[in-house]
């Protein structure tokens, strides 16, 4: 079943300097608990697609449906940014409560759920620490739990690993991948890193340069390999890398 459907979505920006057609015609689906990556030349509007799905922007044409409902009113989407955006004046626990507080959902039940997530993903001892006391990888994990606390059906990852150093990054990718699979959340990753996209995804959407249309969609068949780290080494992923690389040239 499709949890998310984009149909002929287009977006034009208006500014004093004129109008910019960012997205021309974008259509693709995301199935339940599927992991989809969006790649394309820089400036082609990848992040814009995430803003549209999350309802931060409205498309100028086409429609975006989350479980058959308009994305603008849907409350089922979690968003992870390049930076963890943790608030330094709040403890890790209070940071994780942020979304629940804003949406008026900070019930005893929700608190228990957060406690379980903290324990499960190794941040329990750090719940009363402030963000500056944590390493980059732990901070990104805290940001992930903050998003999971709202029980999203779809997770949007906007270059979510780019701010981390390479070694931390490989570990965090494995971490986040495992968590998202365990929680059975459909995910959309936007990234410049083609190898990273291939290592995590079930499906890859390749965009053209601006105004973007969908150039091609590739299925990735690596499910028998458990972690993104190991997938990077497989022959299949290298073949796919070369194929998409050529398309992007």
């Amino acid at each position, binding site marked *: 079943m499709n949890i998310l459907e984009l149909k002929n979505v287009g977006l034009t920006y208006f500014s004093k300097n004129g109008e910019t057609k960012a997205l021309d015609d974008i259509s693709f689906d995301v199935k339940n608990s599927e992991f989809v990556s969006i790649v394309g030349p820089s400036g082609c509007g990848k992040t814009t697609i995430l803003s549209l799905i999350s309802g*931060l922007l409205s498309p100028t044409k086409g429609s975006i449906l989350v479980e058959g409902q308009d994305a603008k009113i849907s409350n089922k989407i979690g968003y992870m940014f390049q930076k963890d955006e943790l608030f330094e004046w709040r403890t890790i626990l209070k940071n994780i409560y942020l979304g629940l507080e804003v949406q008026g959902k900070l019930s005893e039940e929700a608190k228990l759920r957060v406690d379980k997530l903290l324990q499960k993903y190794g941040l329990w001892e750090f719940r009363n620490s402030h963000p500056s006391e944590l390493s980059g990888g732990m901070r990104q994990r805290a940001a992930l739990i903050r998003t999971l606390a709202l029980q999203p059906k779809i997770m949007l990852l906007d270059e979510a690993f780019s701010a981390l150093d390479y070694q931390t990054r490989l570990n965090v990718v494995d971490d986040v991948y495992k968590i998202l699979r365990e929680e059975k959340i459909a995910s959309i990753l936007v990234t410049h890193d083609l190898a990273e996209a291939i290592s995590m995804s079930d499906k890859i959407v390749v965009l053209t340069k601006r105004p973007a249309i969908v150039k091609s969609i590739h299925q990735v068949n690596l499910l028998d390999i458990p972690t993104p780290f190991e997938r990077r080494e497989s022959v299949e992923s290298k073949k796919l890398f070369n194929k998409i690389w050529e398309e992007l040239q």
Partner: protein
Amino acid sequence: MKNVIPQSKEYAKYLSKAKRTKIFIIIIQIGILLSLIGLWELLAVTGAIDTFIMSCPSRIVTTIATIAASGELWLHISTTLYEAIIGFVIATALGTLLAMLLWWNETLRRILDPFIVVLNSLPKIALGPIIIIWVGIGTASIVLMDVLIMVIITTLTMLAAFVNCDNGKILLLRSYNANKFQILTKLIIPNSICDFIGVLKVNVGLTWVGTIMGEYLNSRAGLGYLIVYGGQIFNLDLVMASTVILCLLAAVMYFAVAWIEKIIKKRYNN
């Protein structure tokens, strides 16, 4: 990470050195103050300076004691202190509220921008006669002068802090469908706490400027009044004595703000 470090010999040595440096600095500071006072007194006693123009520490103390004996010391101190504190509180609160209003409404911000810039560069003392004619003489006009001196710069500083908030964090809250009020209370205000402390520290100095300036314009009591009065009758002892008391009050108020800063910083872990 806050680890408890086991006390090694080197660490104990490091700590004692830091402590000794701190004590050394305090001793030197007190030393400088005492030698300046001593030198001043010495020059006065030997007749190297004219105490009629320069006054001297012993005469300052005598003057303060005389005012205190007449029972008027507290009247003057409390008058000025009251004006300074009321002005400080009103200007800081009003300026911060105005900044919030301007943050909230961008159109209003753009409309008022040129007016605020002009008001900021206007020397407020020029408004003295207008203030007196409009609100009359007395405490109200002094406090108003004091508030005028602080409020615009408070508004501008806090507005800059509010507007400069990291866009990514705003986007995060918007992705939770947060409304504008939630963005203000959960992000903008706590994020600007450091700037607010900066404003408090600037205002705690400015409020004395405003109050004394107000008292120069018109007053029947207060330290500014004593200074003007002392100047008019050429009683430099009175002028110096009032200035010394003013210094002490300003220091006390500064430390009060430093204490507030400590509490706020502890609460917000900045």
